């Protein structure tokens, strides 16, 4: 345990029987009321020893450890408050995107292909509802067609249709989705693929809506 009499922050000498106290009454040292440095401005080594007893490196680079600890915690708190602000901005960005999406309204109706353009077990690509959203139309049987967005719900890589395996395959992280439902069956994706709602009109296939799902 450190000797408190060596701590320069302690202005009172608790011992009465020191040589400098001989003949005096009371316990206060003579310099108690003398102007001195603010105790928080005194650089204190971790072992409380005076500066001249410290190693050379510490004399060359004196650091006030308690102040250093205090400042780094305070600055870390500032950083965390900024991080908190960034997260709130992220939430507001989602809200703004949501407002924009609702404002855009439902997507229009778009012809994809004629029924005869696609053989059973084959797929074709198209864009819907805008030119940047790539989708896949797959013919499962003579009468069954399904369409999904091509972006993997993990990290947006393009999925590849594999009708023979009954799956959409994402080559980036080995993700797999069921070809009939778009539900993830393997790999890191957790959300199903975006489903494109289809409509048959005479011998043509139309995309009429987009369906986002969480499960």
């Amino acid at each position, binding site marked *: 345990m450190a000797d408190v009499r060596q701590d320069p922050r302690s202005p009172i000498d608790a011992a009465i029987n020191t040589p400098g106290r001989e003949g005096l009454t009371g316990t206060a040292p003579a310099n108690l009321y003398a102007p001195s440095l603010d105790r928080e401005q005194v650089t204190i080594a971790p072992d409380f020893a005076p500066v001249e007893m410290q190693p050379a490196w510490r004399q060359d680079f004196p650091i006030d450890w308690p102040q250093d600890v205090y400042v780094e915690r305070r600055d870390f708190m500032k950083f965390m408050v900024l991080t908190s602000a960034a997260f709130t901005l992220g*939430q507001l960005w989602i809200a703004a995107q949501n407002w924009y999406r609702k404002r855009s309204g439902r997507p229009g109706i778009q012809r994809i292909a004629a029924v005869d353009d696609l053989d059973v077990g084959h797929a074709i690509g198209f864009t819907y509802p805008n030119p940047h959203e790539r989708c896949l139309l797959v013919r499962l049987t003579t009468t069954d067609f399904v369409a999904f967005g091509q972006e993997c719900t993990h990290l947006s890589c393009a999925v590849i249709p594999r009708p023979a395996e009954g799956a959409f395959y994402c080559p980036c992280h080995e993700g797999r989705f069921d070809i009939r439902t778009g539900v993830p069956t393997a790999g890191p994706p957790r959300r199903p693929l975006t489903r494109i709602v289809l409509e048959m009109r005479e011998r043509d296939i139309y995309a009429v809506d987009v369906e986002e799902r969480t499960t």
Partner: protein
Amino acid sequence: MISGTKRPFSREQRAIIVYGMLFFVLIIVILQLWLLTATMNAWLGGDESIVWPAAAASAACLALNVGLFRYLVRIERTRSGV
């Protein structure tokens, strides 16, 4: 003697206050991170009902953090006599 003036906190006291506030701020920031990922997941999945309540909750967390930070600034100003 009891003085009418308020004594400023010492550095050790302020350090303890900073530790306490840092603990709360960390918990709140972790909560906000979870809230952001959950909201993003729900919104990308087409669930729009959670977007505005989550934004309001995150803004409330930010207000709490900023309030704690302002308190820290205030006790430092008291210390420096500003």
